[in-house]
């Protein structure tokens, strides 16, 4: 599973729709002070479910929507999409306990449809999910039987906010479950924010435990 690209529109200083592909193993981002580099890091944290405005360097969550410049009016909404490649894992025997096993409940239904979608008639399979189906899908890192998985978050000026997986509305819980045990989404050790490097170790012994617990 690989990070494929990031798409931002109306998010902080990215007023225009901007695509940032991440094909090669190391991608560098450069530019003068204040040009928007750290806003990219905020966009990735936000789309993966970040709930604290302060940790996105704002006062309120609305602060992530482009609020205008000398030559432009503010945007009406912020939208960020993170796309992952999710290829079939050559049979390494690694089974992901995917969403397919989940009992039918409200909400995940839309995610459930994600699974069934590719083979069309599976939508009649609703009754079957009461009995856990043997997982015959090829194994992939993300428990979605598709080659690419696009996670989207949107926020409108009126305060409404949406999460989407491959274009279908889901809840934050589904996003968290999608990435469970993959190391994605937990900030403890996959994102080092600007100026926070030494802080990771400066904290007291109790806080350091948290980093280890996240990893466990």
């Amino acid at each position, binding site marked *: 599973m690989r990070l494929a690209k990031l798409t931002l529109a109306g998010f902080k200083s990215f*007023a225009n729709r901007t695509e940032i592909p991440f094909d090669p193993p190391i991608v*560098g981002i*450069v*530019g003068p002070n204040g040009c928007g580099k*750290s806003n990219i890091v905020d966009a990735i944290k936000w789309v993966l479910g970040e709930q604290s405005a302060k940790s996105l360097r704002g006062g309120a969550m609305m602060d992530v929507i482009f609020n205008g410049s000398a030559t432009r009016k503010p945007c009406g909404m912020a939208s960020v999409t993170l796309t992952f490649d999710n290829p079939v894992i050559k049979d390494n025997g690694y089974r992901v306990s995917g969403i397919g096993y989940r009992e039918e409940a409200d909400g995940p239904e839309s995610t459930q449809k994600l699974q069934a979608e590719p083979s069309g008639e599976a939508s009649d399979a609703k009754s079957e999910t009461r009995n856990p189906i043997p997982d015959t899908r090829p194994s992939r890192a993300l428990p979605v039987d598709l080659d690419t998985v696009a996670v989207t978050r949107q926020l409108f000026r009126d305060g409404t906010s949406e999460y989407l997986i491959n274009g279908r509305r889901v809840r934050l819980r589904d996003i968290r479950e999608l990435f469970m045990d*993959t190391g994605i989404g937990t900030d403890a050790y996959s994102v080092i924010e600007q100026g926070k490097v*030494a802080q990771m170790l400066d904290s007291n012994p109790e806080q*350091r435990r948290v980093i280890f617990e996240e990893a466990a």
Partner: protein
Amino acid sequence: CRTRFEKTFHEVRENFAGNNGLFRKLFGGGKADIIMQADEQGNVDMLDSGIEIMAKPPGKEPCRLSQLSGGEKTMAAVAMLLAIFKTRPSPYAILDEVDAALDEANVERFCDVIHSFLDTSHFIVITHNKLTMQACDLLYGITMQERGVSKRVSVRLDQVGADGRIAQDAID
């Protein structure tokens, strides 16, 4: 839960402080250790004790993390991050100007070590440092040609000025 934490702790400790661990790789020598703090009676409780980190840069006496210099602390933190990474790989890592406090000898070691992780993870590195830029496979420049509005352009190393400014020909 206890065994899972214990297993992770020992793996991270080995990846961080072992002879081929990340601390020695980033410092080019020296020694380090991660210790569970004992309580007054000397007991250690895996699920509760705090975690102390000792570091001994090459040629120096062992000391607490707080006595390290700014650059040494950055290197120790990066070593810890990558040690955790080795134990529980994540598909991506984002480093935002982690190299700001480093001198060039440390930047070179930092880039070498990152390269050894590329088979399991993708790195996104934000930097002002020319050496780090050279270590990247692809460079994106972010410019605000229209003030207040960010735009992404692809750049080659020679198009990034000494001052981080993106050359005009890359923007067009």
